[in-house]
């Protein structure tokens, strides 16, 4: 007898085990039936256009599993949260608009070439959001008339020196404090001879030159240290506007 025959005989004579019926049979059948019935329900809800093809009738599209109501609800919530986060980030970015933007806005408005504007700049302070009107105005194109009208005090002053300004919050951009000696007052009343303003612009642009500085009511109230700063060439125009307003 060859070895393969022997093995064949051994395998043929080996008693093979089986499993007796258990609860599994019933439980599995119940699950299968439930799954099949839910599949049928889906098909009833979305009747097929091609009702002649059995294969098509039982085919479940993969996206149908994704388009469950709970997934749609979750997707909607995620979308709302994402939009609100984007809106919040965008609004923060508007508040912390770069100083260059303020520069351009002001130089256009003054009509004088090279006008430098020191605007309330990047502050993430929440209190800043309490003045949306002021802030949005500062970011829009302001005419010189508007700046003059909005200022409580307008002075002509010479920049003396500067010092780095302490950051208000970690991560704030570098800013400087500049001291000005007041030469004359064009509008309002000012007791101090030396004033200090805060600006993100480099101090080298200011030192040793005369400037027309417009101090807002908030500056005068001590709420912040930012002020509009225009070239001295704008002084006659400012005076003309003031004269026009007096009339």
């Amino acid at each position, binding site marked *: 007898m060859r070895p393969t025959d022997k093995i064949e005989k051994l395998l043929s004579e080996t008693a093979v085990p089986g*499993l007796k019926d258990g609860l599994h049979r019933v439980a599995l059948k119940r699950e299968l039936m439930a799954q099949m019935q839910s599949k049928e329900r889906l098909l009833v809800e979305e009747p097929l256009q091609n009702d002649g093809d059995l294969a098509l009738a039982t*085919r479940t599209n993969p996206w149908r599993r994704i388009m469950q109501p709970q997934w749609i609800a979750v997707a909607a919530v995620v979308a709302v949260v994402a939009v609100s986060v984007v809106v919040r980030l965008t609004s923060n970015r508007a508040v912390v608009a770069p100083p260059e933007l303020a520069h351009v806005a002001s130089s256009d408005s003054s009509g004088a070439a090279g006008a430098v504007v020191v605007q309330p700049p990047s502050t993430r302070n929440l209190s800043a959001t309490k003045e949306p009107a002021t802030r949005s105005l500062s970011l829009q194109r302001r005419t010189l008339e508007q700046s003059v009208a909005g200022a409580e005090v307008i002075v002509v002053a010479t920049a003396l020196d500067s010092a780095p300004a302490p950051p208000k919050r970690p991560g704030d951009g570098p800013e400087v404090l500049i001291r000005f000696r007041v030469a004359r007052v064009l509008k309002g009343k000012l007791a101090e001879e030396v004033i200090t303003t805060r600006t993100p612009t480099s101090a080298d642009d200011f030192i040793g030159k005369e400037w027309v500085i417009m101090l807002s009511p908030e500056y005068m109230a001590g709420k912040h240290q930012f002020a509009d700063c225009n070239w001295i060439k704008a002084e006659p125009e400012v005076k003309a506007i003031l004269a026009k307003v007096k009339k």
Partner: protein
Amino acid sequence: MNDLTGDRAVPLRHAVDSAPPASPLDVETELVLRAKNDPAAFGELYEAHYQSILNYLYRRTLSATVAEDLTSNTFFKALRGLSGYHPRPLIRFRSWLYQIATNEARMHWRNHRGRCETLLQSDEMELSRITFVWPQTDSPEMVREKQKHYVMVHQALNQLPELYRTALTLRYFEGLGHEEIAEILCKRLGAVKSLVHRGLARLAKIMTGLGATE
């Protein structure tokens, strides 16, 4: 010379096993087509094939829990794939189920390669569920003895490459004919016969090494 063309050597077991004889193909085809839409028809197919698939997977894994899990996977996959299943002439639904079950067993062994030995030890509770329908065995001692012998054969089979192991299990433990094994393994008839023959030769070497053929 060894006859590779006939089914002469081995009596088919499914005449005495729990698996039902293959139903006439046209009746089965009609039932399968109905089962695509009709839960009752699918239930009929399930009842007809559950026991044979469970037993097959038990014989492959030697763990009742694992066999039940794999049987569940097999039927869930069958339900999912039923819409794409097109009955072909001369190919049985049972072969398709065996094909899925074989893949499940293969995946199981692949994932649990390092843990084969622990699976081979059936506990007492599991032993009470085991039955040897052929030859009929009732006493627990006989069951334990036969189980021990089967485990020994199973261990030898496990040393064979997967394809040989599957072919021999289907042939000698499930009692399937070469044609049906060819359907399950998606191979030609001649390839299956040669596979079984070469599997036997390899197993003979292994068994001789173990001293089990004496």
